[in-house]
């Protein structure tokens, strides 16, 4: 199993029946493929739909129905479409149960940076700032380090997405929970030790006496 699939499968276990969930572009999108059996969630696409689904079959697309990347999607029975203000009303008003987002850095306070690298990449924040500020639960799904450089750091050097503390970080090495006391190592990936995780982490981790091995969906 590749690293991204591992991350997606672990994140999928965080979703509860009936949740309204928004998946960011890239790695987080994979989570939809790994829902545990019997867990029905509603996926939102912030460009204006609750109830997005994969395109049901080849050719069954509509020019008027796409995800936030502009790619064609399908809709489940009972889907609802709306304008961008309502879409972000759902996000900002506390109606979104879970957002899963990629990350460039997360720091010891659980603050996320994921929208720009000054002087190099200025894509814009899109909906990320709203998602992190407004969702009931924010899960960061990312690789643990970038070309050997830790992405979990003492303090973000990149511009923050929000001052809100995210709720969970899932990487190919570990599950880490930002808390008021700091970053708590909750689980390690199969075959990984807490020492391995610490070696690739640029921030202090609170390591309990016993750290269970990551559960993985499906």
């Amino acid at each position, binding site marked *: 199993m590749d690293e991204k699939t591992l991350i997606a499968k672990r994140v999928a276990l965080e979703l509860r029946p009936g949740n309204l969930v928004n998946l960011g572009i890239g790695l987080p999108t994979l989570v939809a493929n790994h829902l545990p059996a019997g867990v029905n969630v509603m996926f939102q696409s912030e460009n204006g739909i609750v109830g997005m689904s994969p395109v049901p079959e080849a050719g069954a697309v509509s020019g008027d129905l796409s995800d936030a990347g*502009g790619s064609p999607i399908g809709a489940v029975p009972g889907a609802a479409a709306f304008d*961008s*203000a309502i879409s972000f009303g759902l996000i900002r008003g506390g109606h979104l149960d879970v957002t899963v987002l990629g990350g460039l850095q997360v720091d010891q306070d659980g603050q996320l940076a994921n929208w720009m690298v000054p002087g190099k990449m200025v894509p814009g924040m899109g909906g990320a700032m709203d998602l992190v500020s407004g969702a009931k639960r924010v899960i960061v799904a990312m690789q643990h380090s970038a070309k050997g450089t830790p992405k979990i750091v003492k303090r973000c050097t990149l511009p923050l997405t929000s001052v809100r503390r995210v709720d969970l970080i899932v990487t190919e090495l570990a599950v880490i929970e930002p808390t008021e006391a700091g970053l708590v190592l909750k689980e390690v990936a199969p075959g990984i030790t807490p020492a391995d995780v610490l070696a690739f982490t640029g921030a202090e981790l609170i390591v309990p006496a016993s750290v269970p091995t990551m559960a993985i969906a499906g």
Partner: protein
Amino acid sequence: MSKVRTVEEAVARIPDGAILMIGGFMGVGTPPRLIDELLRQGKRGLTVIANDTARPGVGIGKLIDAKAVRKVIASHIGTNPETQRQMMAGEIEVELVPQGTLAERVRAGGFGLGGILTPTGIGTVVEEGKQKIEVDGTVFLVETALKADFALIAAKHADYLGNLDYALTARNFNPLMAMAAGTVIAEAEDIVPVGVIPPDAVVTPNVLVDCIVAKEVRHG
């Protein structure tokens, strides 16, 4: 008097340097014929308020390609390397706004609000230069209203009075922008007789629309 105009007439109203709101999200829900006609008429120095600049060759991306745009106010330009290149080269000014805040700022412009109070952006670069205000112990950012000279709207159906509906995710910013501009030009996939769109299905009420782009004449 009928609101129907040819696409040439509709776009001819837009002067160089105008502030435009343009509906759409990665090109979906962006009025294609209005975009092409802006290019054909060689408009210059436009300010574009939109969610994104799509991709090169797509939707608003075509205006970027043609260097018709002086300034962009958007939530995201990451999918269009040409917008990023022009920004880095100082050829275009880009104001980045969180997407939910952009939606609310456009809405505020159309709804007569001075702005809205939001937690989004607090403690980030987004708050730079903006007022903050405390309500019941929580600090909010004051995000002010946006208005435009023209809104270019893509609808599914228009009736001849100007009532509009939209389809699925092609709705996005269109109904918000249709409230927030001095002149609203709507391009619909089809124009239907008055009364065909039921009152409950109308998303943009007729009184907001100034101009409906005539359908293309096709033969065969």
